[in-house]
């Protein structure tokens, strides 16, 4: 069973907990303004400049250091594009700016998963039903058994290898996860439904592949193989980094899961409580927080998904104080420690659990 380091709260305590967090949210929201708008536009400019510099350097791949620097810069650009820019914009963190080019419902990113699919599987399913078994499909991505409450099967034995494969191909994992390919493999989804859901991913993937593996290599002429490899390397850097950050968000040692029954008539306080207990933070400096798209403040992100992520650092001490006041555990640790606890979780739960009640993964 999931164990908890938090005290159970009565409905009244949950209401007080929710009100305290609502107050914090409203306080910060009232101060959003020019600095936040300038910031996100600077982030977008950084993505564009680093992408141009990275692709430009890759064209000079006959100088080996240029290939290394170009690949690194392009990988950096894709990481910032996906995390601090795309993920946060698509959450509606900057909708208040009323800038159509930074609007959550129309934003598109440098990623195989189309924005529309992401808005559904991530913003709706994952953020509303965070760590609710059978609802939040991000728990193990339909591939890994991470909690004793999930049903064990012999397929889980080599799951550390699945995790490694997922990390390397994480953007494909995210896109296909959105199309619920795992449910199709289990026969729980019809072929027609699969075609319907895969078609937009195929279109987006074709565009991404054409860009990174056809157009830019061809533009480089004799440098084509080097550019292709550099683009492959940049996508790999982005995949590994985002996988590591995201798996540390909800699957660390103290992260909790919840049965599907909790979301019926759920109070706002209870929703907040579930976000807090299901999420875990990573400690680090400003550059580290930026490179994770501030998902290092996963707790604050889950409590306040539509507040600009650059504000999470200033909100974190207040959240910690509110959690402490209500005897709730605030799950935080170094990147290395949290990542190690995730690896341990993947290994431990590849074997059947004893002494716990098994709950079907999808009721």
């Amino acid at each position, binding site marked *: 069973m999931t164990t908890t380091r938090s005290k159970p709260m009565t409905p009244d305590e949950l209401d007080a907990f929710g009100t305290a967090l609502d107050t914090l949210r409203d306080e910060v929201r009232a101060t959003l303004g020019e600095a936040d708008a300038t910031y996100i536009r600077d982030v977008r400019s950084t993505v564009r400049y680093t992408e141009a510099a990275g692709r430009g350097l890759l064209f000079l791949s006959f100088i080996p250091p240029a290939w290394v620097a170009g690949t690194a810069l392009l990988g950096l650009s894709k990481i910032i594009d996906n995390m601090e820019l795309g993920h946060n914009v698509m959450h509606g963190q900057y*909708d208040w700016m009323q800038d159509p080019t930074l609007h959550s419902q129309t934003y598109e990113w440098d990623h195989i998963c189309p924005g529309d699919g992401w808005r559904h599987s991530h913003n709706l399913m994952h953020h509303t039903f965070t760590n609710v078994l059978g609802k939040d499909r991000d728990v193990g991505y339909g591939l890994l058994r991470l909690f004793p409450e999930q049903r064990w099967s012999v397929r889980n034995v080599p799951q550390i290898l699945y995790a490694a494969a997922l990390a390397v191909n994480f953007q494909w994992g995210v896109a296909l996860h959105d199309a619920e390919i795992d449910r199709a493999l289990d026969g729980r989804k019809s072929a027609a439904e699969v075609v319907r859901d895969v078609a937009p991913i195929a279109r987006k993937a074709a565009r991404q592949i054409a860009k990174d593996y056809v157009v830019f290599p061809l533009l480089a002429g004799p440098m084509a193989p080097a550019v292709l490899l550099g683009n492959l390397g940049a996508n790999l850097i982005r995949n590994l980094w985002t996988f590591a950050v995201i798996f540390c968000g909800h699957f660390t040692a103290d992260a909790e899961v919840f049965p599907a029954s909790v979301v019926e008539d759920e109070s706002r306080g209870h929703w907040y409580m579930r976000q807090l207990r299901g999420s875990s933070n990573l400690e680090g400096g400003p550059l580290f927080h930026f490179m994770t798209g501030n998902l290092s403040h996963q707790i604050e992100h889950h409590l306040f998904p539509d507040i600009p992520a650059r504000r999470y650092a200033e909100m974190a001490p207040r959240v910690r104080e509110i959690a402490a006041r209500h005897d709730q555990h605030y799950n935080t640790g170094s990147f290395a420690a949290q990542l190690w606890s995730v690896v341990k979780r993947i290994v431990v739960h590849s074997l059947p659990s004893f002494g716990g009640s098994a709950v079907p993964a999808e009721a």
Partner: protein
Amino acid sequence: MPNPLTRFLDSDTLEFWLQHVDPLFAYDRVRARVEVVQHETPRVRTVVLRPNARWRGFRAGQHVVVTLEVDGRRLSRTFSLSGGEDDRTLRLTIGRQPNGRVTGALHDRIRPGDILEISQAHGDFVLPDDERVPLLLVAGGTGITPFLAMLRTLAARGARRDVVLLNWAPRAAELIARHELTTLPNRLLGLRVHTAYTREGMDRFSAAGVESVVPDFRQRLTYVCGPDALTDAVAACWRDAGLTERLRREWFGAPRRDATSDGPVAVACTRSGRTVTVPGVQSLLVELEAAGLTPAHGCRAGICRQCTCVLASGAVEELRTGGTRNETDEPIQLCAVRARSDLVLAL
């Protein structure tokens, strides 16, 4: 203008790079450089603009939507163009509204060299093509701006036209284009200008006043633009005279957005073309669904933003905070607000 580059580079990115070369560049939007800012009166300024090649021209009397970022938010306001149709530049004559965020920013912040985003010109508040139609133009305050465009256009073309301008300003020092209005009749034969100052004890608009100053007003095609008090009075007078068909009215200034209602309200949906009546008690999402619409939505709890929709006009109240949202073209979450006035939604 299809461009093969946009298959791989979205138009925002294309604009980002091309604006490094030409700051006025835009793929399809009108951007305009501020050439001069003129002080008309203590609270009115004229911004002279040079638009990029996307500008398609305008007819005197039409307006544009100016979009400006204030405290990080893009806000839009509508202003009549006040320059002549044939001028090489555009003129926006802008009065500072009390507590006006956009007009305040336009006054305090805009300098020559700045770039403004404007829409194409819109509106049917324009003169008839038939030059024989005698005209009466009734203006109050900055409501004179569309008429300045008309008179400047006619004067520049050396036209001869039977036009009467009835113009009200609070006091002489607050009269827009004060000097030009005295010389325009020399350049536009057939123009008569009557100006009155309400704060200097002169008469406000009245039916009797019109009868004495413009006895043939029934024969004229009349245009009115100005504060609601003036346009309402003119509309009532023309209705009483059975002349509503002969009156053109321009809605002017900030819409009356404080008028919130506690009763049922009408919601006009611009994409589906449907208008429904909702009680304004529960969330808009719930009430629109009850009215038979099917807006896109997700969590129904204000989290996922799947139901975000642009509020073209009207006022809504956030259910959780009680705060009012009434900014033109503001995105709202249908599941998290209730209607507080008649609404127009991009739905």
